[in-house]
């Protein structure tokens, strides 16, 4: 498993959901977690630097998860950042859109720590961590 000190940004407009994801990450040993309420705030935090992983919701006001992902991929300093999309949207079109925008992984809510661990591991494997 990857470095447990890895700094992770959790993006969701629903604070309960941020807490859920945060707790699941903590269960997996990742405690260095910051939160953002929407894509726009997330992008600001990411641009300030220091984050190694992003877990983002799709449906959010101001800037949604897909727009955030596109913005990340088109910013040279962030382009390589792994982004895991979490959403209740299980439609094929959505997954394809996420894939085309360069998502590193996609999880459909609700999920468990085990599912999250599995998805994270797959991403780490691909990254060669």
């Amino acid at each position, binding site marked *: 498993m990857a470095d447990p000190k890895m700094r992770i940004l959790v993006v969701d407009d629903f604070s309960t959901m941020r807490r859920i994801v945060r707790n699941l990450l903590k269960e997996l040993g990742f405690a260095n977690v910051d939160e953002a309420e929407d894509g726009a705030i997330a992008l600001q935090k990411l641009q300030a630097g220091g984050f190694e992983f992003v877990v983002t*919701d799709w449906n959010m006001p101001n800037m949604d998860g897909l727009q955030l992902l596109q913005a990340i991929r088109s910013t040279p300093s962030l382009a390589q950042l792994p982004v895991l999309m979490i959403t209740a949207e299980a439609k*094929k079109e959505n*997954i394809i859109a996420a*894939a085309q925008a360069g998502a590193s992984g996609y999880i*459909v*809510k609700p999920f468990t720590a085990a599912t999250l661990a599995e998805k994270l591991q*797959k*991403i780490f494997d*691909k*990254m060669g961590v």
Partner: protein
Amino acid sequence: MSDFSGMEDLLQDFLQEASDLLSDVDNKLVDLEKDPGDRRLLNDIFRGFHTIKGGAGFLNAAELVTLCHLTENLFDKLRNAEMQLTPELMDTIMAATQGVRAMFGELSQAVQPRPAPSEVIHALRVALHEQEPEATAAQAAAPEAPKSDDPVMTPSAQSADRGSAGGPDWQALHAAVTGQESVASPVSPAKSSVALEPAGSKAVATEAELTPHFPPEGRRATDKPGFVGTGATTGRRNEEKIATRESTIRVDTARLDQVLNLSGEIGLTKNRLTSLRADILAGRNDSETLHALDQAVSQLDLLVSDLQNSVMKTRMQPIGRLFQKYPRIARDLARQLGKDVELALVGEETEVDKTMIEDLADPLVHLVRNAVDHGVESPEERLAAGKPAKSVVRLEARQEGDHIVLIIADDGRGMSPERIRNKAIEKGLIREEEANTLDDRQSLNLIFLPGFSTMTQASAVSGRGVGMDVVKTNIQKLNGSVEIRSEPGKGSVFIISLPLTLAILPVLLVLLGDQPFALPLSMVREILPIEKEKMQEVGGKETLVVRGEVLPVVALSRLLGWPQLQTPEYGVLMQTSERSFILSVDSFAGRDDAVIKSLDDFRPRGVAGVTTLSNGQIVLILDMKELLADLNAHVDRDAIAKQHPKAIELSA
């Protein structure tokens, strides 16, 4: 027994956040009714249901997930203009949000929600052109899903490989989407139902695009008046449940930081004082030390009052959180009664103490319902009276000094003092001779008597056993007051006045002889000397002219029933919501922020509470409204009321 052991915290968080979200959705639905094509609203509502669904999934609340999912799909179609919003569809959506709220109610009892009423689910599925699940499973999903799957999936797999250099595991993702993987997850019941439906609805949707939008069953299912009726009834029961107390509060972190910061500063000042005390005890009392002591104490003074303010502010919540719930209540009730009513909200950002918001929920529901039910006329009556068919009920909050004023105003038929008097006599609430002495304002106040109801028959809507008397009692418990203004044919206005907080009250200390009394500073406009020669007598009352305004002078001693030992030298110009007067006192002792201690069981009339002065002396805080009312009643009994109603009002 809790269905959520180990998840109580999560459940609490979810309920609080999701309830706010649902109120917001409710409001946006009311807005949407006015502007059915607003894409932004459609999007926001879609996102609301989507977010609730996501959270509900983690709580394994399968029924809530299903209901939100269906509603969300409906809004997905609406926002993509695949469907038009019709009044029938609106009813279905309203019933669905009520269903969601009912489930929140069940969740708050820590039980898994039961399935939504089958007619709601049915109406949603019909609207979505989905067939009943029994039929779908056999016909639609089985033969169609695999057929449509293959051709779509192949390009998707390709594009996935091209699209992302990282090469995510799309096989597994697809498995997650189609639900094949669901056995692995402990939350499988919720998950599989979610995961399967898009595939089904997708297949049916393409087929449905060819058929007319609303099949006849859809109409019938939603058109039945009984259907709307039952929906609204459940809704009302739930609205009442909203009033249950929340034991947690959400506070802006900036406010908490301020509290933290101030308590830190106080700690530093305390250290300074400790070291100064050591110096002084050691015999140092040079001017430098004393100056430092003076400085430290003044600083502490400032810090403590800032801290008090900051702590108070953490309890303050925008009243909009409460207001949000009313447009929907007004709308449902108006529809039920066949009236056209818009509830206009004003001043939602006004901040009110959290306890007060909770205690206001019920009285306001009652007043809003009352305005829609009794205040507003039917559209026909309104048109006949030359008014627009649509009525506007205004719910307003604003801060006036250190008071919060809430206004519920309708433009309906208004109240007739005459009719109210007759009704009260008929009901045996007052005697006829008593009724004859009442002026219009007092007559209107009769509706607050227990057992009063202006309608000959309580309608289905208001027959809830909660009367206006309860409204008044609840507001009085908050140290507030209610006032009615009404003009027949033009409408009625209920004005509720409440203190900003129940804990701290800025007061003016006045002296009667040596005895200090505290007056709420909010009512004090100015202090002026009383010069005997400038006093004028009008209608047997002493008055003083202040900048052209003739104001009655009332001696505090007279209000309290104390003997007048010396001639009052000062006047305090006091202002209540509707009258001004000068209170004459012997002298002043200054102003103070009184920490109110209530006199629990023993509460003499005219006394709001007690406070302790810095020298340890105990001071009564006077309730001017009560004292004035007593004086009024006294004068009324003298029956001068008939001749000089205006003077009486001023004499108070």
